[in-house]
């Protein structure tokens, strides 16, 4: 054993990004990159290829025919059934998340067309309390699937969620049961459900609706898994492989059908839907 302890270097923030809104520093590779180029590149770092989050609007614009998205989300928001307060009240968290995202909750669902083919599309926004599934998201997903049954068209869900929303307690857990129960109606109606898993798809969302797609596609860079790294290290302190819960890990172990780059997701969906048109 060394008698000298490892030197502890003071971490100094040398973030030298110029105070210029045209540029941003990628925190993955540290490069200064031109914001417009990032945007043109589907929110992927042009230097290292790191995927950044998409807003719901960006995601929808990227996937569907221009101008075809019709937001059919029910006009509802969280009601705080437990009057939950941790360091902050749940109501404050909701208001804050609504302010940041401009959304009532973490999922938007609507009618749209992809290369002319009608679909119902649900998209989660991770910035809204971690994309967590509470009563509102559960209801919107069910509403989306039921609309798909009514319209007789496929249902597509783009997940980006840490799991169940803790602040609604067991109500949130029950959304796993709720969405699963309604998912069966799509199957009965002979309608395909395409589940797209992005960074991250985990916890109660991964352990229910997202894992029940007829076809499951991961976006490159997705994190897919049930219990987060910290949970594992906290409960059983197990060594984790480097690629743990990555898209690659899920693919290798047979949990998903394909891994697709963000820029190719739209054409992927289009060709996939082609198999079901006429059938649907």
């Amino acid at each position, binding site marked *: 054993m060394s008698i000298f302890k490892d030197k502890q270097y003071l971490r100094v923030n040398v973030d030298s990004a110029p105070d210029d809104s045209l540029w941003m520093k990628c925190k993955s590779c540290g490069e200064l990159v031109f914001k417009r180029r990032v945007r043109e590149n589907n929110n992927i770092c042009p230097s290292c290829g790191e995927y950044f989050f998409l807003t719901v609007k960006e995601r929808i614009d990227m996937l569907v025919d221009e101008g075809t998205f019709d937001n059919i989300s029910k006009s509802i928001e969280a009601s705080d059934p437990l009057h939950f307060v941790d360091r902050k009240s749940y109501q404050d968290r909701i208001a804050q998340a609504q302010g940041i995202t401009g*959304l009532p909750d973490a999922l938007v669902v609507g009618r749209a067309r992809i290369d002319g083919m009608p679909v119902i599309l649900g998209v989660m926004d991770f910035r809204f309390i971690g994309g967590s599934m509470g009563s509102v998201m559960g209801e919107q997903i069910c509403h989306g699937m039921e609309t798909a049954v009514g319209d007789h068209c496929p249902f597509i869900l783009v997940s980006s969620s840490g799991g169940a929303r803790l602040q609604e307690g067991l109500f949130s857990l029950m959304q796993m049961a709720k969405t699963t129960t309604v998912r069966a109606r799509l199957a009965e109606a002979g309608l395909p459900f395409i589940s797209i898993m992005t960074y991250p798809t985990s916890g109660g969302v991964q352990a229910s609706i997202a894992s029940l797609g007829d076809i499951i596609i991961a976006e490159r860079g997705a994190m897919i898994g049930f219990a987060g790294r910290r949970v594992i290290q906290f409960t059983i302190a197990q060594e984790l492989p480097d690629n743990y819960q990555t898209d690659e890990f899920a693919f290798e172990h047979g949990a998903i059908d394909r891994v697709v780059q963000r820029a190719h997701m739209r054409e992927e969906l289009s060709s996939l839907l082609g198999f079901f048109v006429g059938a649907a």
Partner: protein
Amino acid sequence: MSDERTLDLLETKIGELRQLNSIDGIDLSGEIDKLEAKLEALRRELYSSLSDWERVKIARNPKRPYALDYIDAMFTGFYELHGDRLFGDDRALLAGLAQFNGRTVMLVAQQKGRTTEENQERFFGMTRPQGYRKAIRAMRMAERFGFPVITLIDTPGAYPGVESEAANIGGAIAESLLTMSQLRTPIISVIIGEGGSGGALAIGLADRVLMLENAVYSVITPEGAAAILWKEKGKSAEAAAALNLTAEHLSDLGLIDAIIAEPLGGAHKDFDQTTQALKQSLVSFLDELEALTMDELLDARFDRYRSIGSYQELGTSRVAILEENPPQVEPDISKISAEDGSKKPSADAPVE
């Protein structure tokens, strides 16, 4: 709960006095009666005002009866079925046939261990993918033969290790939920101890959900919620209270159907009384469910889960709708600005 030790001590002493009392020529019955009255009073005082966090501790008390104790006490001829026919056999989740009140039932039950050895075998009651897949297999078989399914829930959660994830634990839970939502036979679930999140719900999508008085059922453990939301380990008691995880709270919220009364101090204090109450409740719920046609049963199950949730009409003044207020178009780099210096923040950060 340090007072519980006082109660235990007093109980032991009374036992010793009783032994002395049986020796010829010594009469201690007066003293014994007095001490017993005292014990009863203390017990009442302690257990009449339990906090939610104290209930969590009772629910996890290793003296508490486990699934096999209930199976032995309430069912006859338990014939255990092993293996998921795909990979292995999970000893933390048991499945098997048994006789109950004149009919054959399929039991699916989570089993914890008491000794270190038992816990190694039972993985501390944490179910693995092969456990849920065994449950699915058993439930499908029950459906084929028209046996009602009774599930006994007692788990800290699904096993979160690498091998679990490699075998798609999330997918296994989802499959189990889907199976139960469609299963054409009555299902009753009883939370007998710990109802730990998705790992519990995975065998808990049922026509009737019962909870023992001191059982808990939660989206996350109080410790987990404290770490994630309060960011302080010492806040488990606050988290337990905030989560509304007791049988009483969940009954008030309309999320469970019945509470099975336990004797003062917990089910282990008078197991006979507990099993009598549970058996009675199971019999009447089974009768009720078996009186329905299969379509009625499935429709009622659908309606039950389709309607679960609590939300309100959107206050239009508070929220700008997507079209009116497009979200910021700045590339969002929050994904890679982890506090802990790792490349990506843990995805379970605010949620479970």
